[in-house]
């Protein structure tokens, strides 16, 4: 029993409702058996069909009630599971967004996607199946066996004994098969991945001239995979085998036992038939629970994953921050980020242009993530207008920024909506003006639907240069005081970079710019350069000053030019 299930909002009420319905259902199941047995016995003794018909009618009534209750139970469970799943979906998404992109990339975007889109439905199925199954498993066999005991003690005892034996068997099988399957899990995993691995690596195989011959490898590995799977299945299917085996064997034993006692005149036909009809019903709930074992397991696992993410969530910060204005300065005081940045001290002035450079892994991206309000520093403060702030991860700070990353996300929307992403109310004139400024006009002319052309997933793909121009156009419309750049031109070809550079430089006017890059040609356009090495700031100053200083910045330039080893 999963205690967590009782914690969900409204679950106790649902347990109660379904519990009551299940109890009524148990009564209906017993009634249905009694009257079916009666009808058969009446006919057996040659009673007029009218008498039998009466019994059949009551049977049908009980049978109908039983299945109508089943229907009601499933409705309730479905409705409830939907509610719970919806709540979780909302909490989960809110938590993921609240924790920001930095944390999301730590989890892995792919696994978050799977968790939200597949984990939630799995969890829903689990809640939907597990509550009624669990209750049925407790209530129905108990009710049936109590009734059978009043009728025929020996059959009742047979049924009671079989259940624990069955459960012990299931546990044993579980242990054995788990060991057997775990033992070759690794090979199994490799084999199962081989095909998708081959497809993804097809281009590489082709370039190696190996792609034709690889066909045979696929056939061989698929075959090995089949054999390995068969081996695993032999064990995996054992538990449902045991369930069926014990269920039908005990029905047979009960029937044979009843037969002998009938011959000896110890019991009567009607009662014997009732017990015979009830025997399979006794095992039904445990068989259903067994069949849904994997579904419930998946759901439970998903729920555990949800909790991990939800626990990381911190309460939304209600810190008010002022507007970034003339003469404002933001001072970093001993700002650290565990394992990445150490004791940073720097000042960012209004309309200052600041370049952040350093070799790979020096901490450029971490610093940008701090300044973009994606992540909290582990130590230190930000000083602004005499007030200190522990973090910039507040909506008030974020909404003053424009952020242009290395790979701009192009949403599956029209070109228009992509460009006015930050300014949804911008008019077409404003959008077109921005497009003109960033040099995307030829693109709009090329599109049959102009601004309304769908781009992004499922629409047209843009080249890297065009994507960055879209980002610039977005920033233009947004008109923010602070611009953050994280390697905006790293993957562009040199000619495109050259063209875009002119546009970007004009964007720098009258704005505060923070620009992290490997491309040092941007630095002469900066007022101040922060040079990072292994998470420390090793130099701060203008391009000219740092050249004169002949320190880390100069070394970095030389290393890039291949002038030092």
């Amino acid at each position, binding site marked *: 029993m999963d205690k967590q299930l009782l914690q969900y909002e409204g679950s106790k009420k649902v347990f109660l409702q379904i519990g009551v319905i299940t109890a009524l259902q148990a009564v209906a199941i017993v009634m249905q058996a009694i009257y079916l047995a009666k*009808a*058969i016995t009446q*006919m*057996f003794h*040659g009673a007029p069909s009218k008498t039998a018909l009466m019994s059949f009618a009551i*049977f049908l009534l009980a049978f*109908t009630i039983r*299945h109508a209750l*089943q229907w009601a139970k499933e409705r309730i469970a*479905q409705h409830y599971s*939907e509610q719970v799943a*919806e709540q979780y979906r909302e909490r989960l998404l809110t938590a*993921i*967004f609240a924790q*920001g992109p930095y944390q999301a990339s730590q989890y892995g975007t792919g696994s978050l*996607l799977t968790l*939200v*889109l597949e984990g939630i439905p799995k969890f829903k199925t689990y809640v939907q199946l597990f509550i009624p199954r669990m209750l049925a498993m407790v209530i129905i066999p108990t009710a049936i066996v109590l009734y059978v005991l009043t009728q025929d003690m020996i059959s009742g005892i047979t049924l009671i004994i079989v259940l624990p034996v069955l459960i012990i068997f299931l546990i044993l099988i579980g242990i054995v098969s788990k060991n057997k399957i775990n033992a070759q899990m690794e090979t199994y995993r490799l084999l199962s991945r081989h*095909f*998708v691995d*081959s*497809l993804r690596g*097809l*281009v*590489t195989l*082709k370039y*190696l*001239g*190996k*792609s034709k011959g690889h*066909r045979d490898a*696929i056939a061989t590995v*698929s075959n090995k995979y*089949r054999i390995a799977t*068969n081996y695993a299945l032999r064990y995996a299917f054992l538990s449902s085998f045991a369930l*069926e085996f014990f269920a*039908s*064997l005990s*029905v047979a034993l009960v029937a044979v036992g*009843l*037969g*002998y006692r009938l011959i000896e*005149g110890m019991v009567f*036909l009607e009662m*014997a038939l009732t017990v015979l009809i009830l025997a399979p019903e006794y095992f039904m709930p445990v068989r259903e629970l067994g069949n849904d074992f994997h579904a419930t397991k998946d759901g439970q696992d998903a729920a555990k994953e949800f909790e991990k993410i939800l626990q990381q969530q911190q309460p939304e910060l209600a810190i008010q921050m002022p507007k970034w204005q003339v003469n404002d300065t933001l001072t970093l005081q001993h700002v650290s980020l565990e394992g990445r940045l150490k004791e940073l001290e720097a000042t960012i002035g209004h309309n200052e242009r600041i370049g952040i450079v350093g070799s*790979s892994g020096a901490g450029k991206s971490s610093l940008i993530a701090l300044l*973009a309000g*994606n992540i909290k520093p582990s130590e230190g403060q930000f000083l602004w207008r005499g007030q200190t702030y522990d973090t910039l991860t507040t909506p008030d700070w974020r*909404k003053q920024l424009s952020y242009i990353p290395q790979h701009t*996300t192009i*949403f*599956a929307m029209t070109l228009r909506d992509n460009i006015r992403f930050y300014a949804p109310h911008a008019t077409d004139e404003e959008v077109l003006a921005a497009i003109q400024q960033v040099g995307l006009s030829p693109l709009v002319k090329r599109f049959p639907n102009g601004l309304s052309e769908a781009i992004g997933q*499922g629409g047209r*793909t843009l080249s890297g*240069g065009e994507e960055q121009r879209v980002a610039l156009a977005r920033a233009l419309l947004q008109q923010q005081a602070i611009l953050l750049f994280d390697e905006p031109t790293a*993957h562009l*070809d040199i000619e495109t970079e*050259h063209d875009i550079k002119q546009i970007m430089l004009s964007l720098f006017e009258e704005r505060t710019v923070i620009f992290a890059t490997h491309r040092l*040609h941007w*630095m002469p356009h900066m007022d101040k350069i922060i040079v990072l090495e292994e998470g420390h700031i090793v130099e701060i100053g203008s391009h000219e000053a740092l050249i004169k200083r002949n320190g880390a910045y100069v070394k970095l330039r030389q290393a890039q030019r291949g002038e030092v080893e």
Partner: protein
Amino acid sequence: MIAHLWHYMKKYKLAMALTILMGILALLSAAMLTFTSGYLISRASERPENIMMVYVTTVIVRALGISRAVFHYVERLVGHNAVLEILAKMRVLLYEALEPQALFIRERFTTGDLLGTLADDIEHLQDAYIRTVFPTLIGLFVLLYAVIALAVIDWPFALLMALLLGVVAFVYPAWSLFKMKQHQMKAQQAQRTLYTTLTDAFLGMQDWLISGRSHEFITSFLGQAKEADKLERTLGHWQQSRNLQLQLITGVFVIIVGLWAGNQAAEGVILPTYIAAFTLVVMPILEGLIPMSHAIERIPVYESSLQRINAIKREENEAQTVAPTIAHTTIAFQHVQFTYDQATTPAIAQVDLTIQAGEKIAILGQSGAGKSTLVQLLLGNLQAQQGKVTLGDTLTTQFGDTIYDYVSVLNQKPYLFATSVENNIKLGNQQATDEEVANAIAIVQLQDYLSTLPLGIKTQTEETGQRFSGGERQRLALARILLKNTPIVVLDEPTVGLDPITERQLMTTTFQALQNKTIIWVTHHLTMMEEMDRIIFMEEGEIVMIGTHKELFSNNERYRQLYALDYGD
């Protein structure tokens, strides 16, 4: 859909028949257990003088109690085995279809991870057999068996029952399929939309946060998800209601058969001991027929998978096994013009270019300038409409895949397979000795790094090679190419995404390793252009600038500007 299933059913008819037979036996065991028990109890209640009168029956009952589980177990094993064989066959066929178009898949299909989706699609088709084909066929056979058995006793009644059971076995499944088809497709569509929306949102989370619109997004996404839930709910409600209806039908059946058996006994056609048997057997038989509705209803779920797989058109092209012999390895483009199928302007226009053996050439140009087309023409994967592309005076299109005996390609994202580092490197040459492998690793300067790993070159690369950084991956791929040892190497933007220092180090290693070979380097930067014999700039399919670094630097203003950017001034 049906044609596809039928094709494989025929192909593996023995395994299929065995599975279905086992399924039928399992179902019949359950039915006969009830039937025989009913008979046994009725007969016993007549208190026969001799216990031997029911002895055989008790043995049968016990046997049936065991056989059902055994048959079912065997059915599942045999069925899964057969289906896995089908999947293995399908994987090979899909691979064969994809292989010739490998290099152009990206252009032909715009959807994200098409290859991953296709691999999943094949897995999904398992269910088509296990959850649809098998239950349906088993149900049909059981229906047939029940009707025939009844017909022996009372054929008009058997006919009536056939009609009534037909409601469960045909009418409800057909109705479910018809009624829910649109629905299932809509639900799938909704799921796909959710997937796209959320992928975008996670990748663009920064944008949503900065725009202050993340609440807006979450609300709208939850709304979309709720709509998708609604579709699922309708489906669930339909299934629950259908189940209730089918159960009620079962109840009515029990009564009809019960009354019939009572009548038959009264008329002396059957013994009264069979009344219980006939009445009780109705439920297990219907239990075998009721799942047919759900089985048939699922058909649309597989259809989209199958459509995607079938959309990959097979192109026959004969595998070339023996490379044409060539006297030298000069590459020549002569008045080459190439236009893609639906394009209006040529991708390559009037290109003339000769690359001598051992020459080092850099090709630059913005995206769409024709760099990749030029490479594909060189590899013979595209055929020029005008002019000719030759390697050692032989048309490159005549080489087929044997072109890779002469040309190696290091592309932007060389794939590392989920196997050991050693196996990955040996892909360049399976016959390579340990010494040759070690030598290649030394040349690409990975020996220090690899020796820090506990398993050394036996280390698994992990899925898509995530263990290694961009630079290390390229070095591994370079080691592969060294083992391949071809006279020509194409470097297709191998340094995109690497930082300048790593880029310079990687290219320095590359040039050292490939000293005497022809190098064609498609690049986006001017880093290390000093090392190249010729630099080519392309624009709209034409060569617009050509020369050595020195020449271009002294004569060309634009080149100087670009060079300044890379130089960092």
